[in-house]
């Protein structure tokens, strides 16, 4: 059991280094460290970020957006080990700046060959990357409705849907 876990751990760690470098920058590095290497099955896992040219820092020392991006990198690293048939992201892009939103969407685009992705978002850049878009609206009766929309018509659609 320990072997199975360590095998998975090492693979996720390798994925993490790769995905992290893609979401951040080429020279950036990171690591996953078992706090108690002698007891892997119960050991907490430390996430370390080593941005290019700066001191290594734990997750807690990163900025809001950097934390989110790092967590996304870890989630994708687990995903790569055992890809789920579909993944759902609910407003995960909210703390990200434009550049990082684009990187996030690029990586989703790549994995979308293998799995379906459902992305809930308020972000216009993300919306531009969507293949099929559903607009959700709340009616006066307190009942939600859904309609398929196209991105180029979106602003007017949202107006129409919510008035």
């Amino acid at each position, binding site marked *: 059991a320990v072997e199975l*876990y360590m*095998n*998975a*751990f090492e693979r*996720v760690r390798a994925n993490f280094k790769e995905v992290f470098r893609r979401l951040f920058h080429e020279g950036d590095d990171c690591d996953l460290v078992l706090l108690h290497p002698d007891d892997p099955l*119960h*050991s*907490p*896992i430390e996430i370390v970020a080593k941005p290019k040219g700066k001191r290594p820092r734990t*997750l807690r020392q990163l900025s809001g957006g950097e*934390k*989110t991006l790092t*967590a*996304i990198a*870890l*989630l994708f690293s*687990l*995903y790569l*080990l*055992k*890809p*789920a*048939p*579909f*993944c*759902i992201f*609910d*407003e*995960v892009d*909210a703390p990200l700046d434009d550049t990082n939103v684009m990187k996030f969407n690029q990586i989703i*685009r790549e994995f*979308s060959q293998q799995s*379906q*992705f*459902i*992305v*809930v*978002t*308020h972000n216009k850049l993300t*919306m531009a*990357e969507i*293949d*099929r*878009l*559903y*607009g*959700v*609206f*709340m009616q*006066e*009766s*307190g*009942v*939600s*409705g*859904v309609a398929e929309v196209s991105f180029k018509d*979106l602003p007017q659609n*949202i107006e129409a*849907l*919510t008035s």
Partner: protein
Amino acid sequence: MKLKSLRIKGFKSFADETLIHFDRGITGIVGPNGSGKSNIVDAIRWVLGEQKSTELRLSNMSDVLFNGSERRKPAPYARVTIEFENDKGLLPTEYQTVSISRTLFRSGDSEYRLNDVRCRRKDITDLLIDTGIGSNTYAIIELGMVEEILADKDNARRKMFEQAA
């Protein structure tokens, strides 16, 4: 294994029957605050077997039924049906299309259906076991889950690794 469609009726703010189709690639869900986007995500969790009312942002599981408004009476039941294409033979069944349905009646009674045949909840969770999309997997990633990884409460990270292993 491909997600094909989702049908929601009486579940949270979706009092009226709502049908969403999923294609290959990336499906987006957009709309104003409070319109019902996260409720759709909850519906998917729920039909796949989520039992923790907190994961569905509820005080009690019964809060999952449309609870009425000035103009609309509360719903008598909440029903969500999800349809998959068994294209990679991942699901241990000879069916090409698999539909899973969960209903909760206001009385508290529950009903589960597999391809429209009544079954136990266990039959559904057994079916999903090797697919990586039962409830409680990292397939559904809300901003809250990012928070979980960041906070690492109760060694949440280690649990995710175990699941992946």
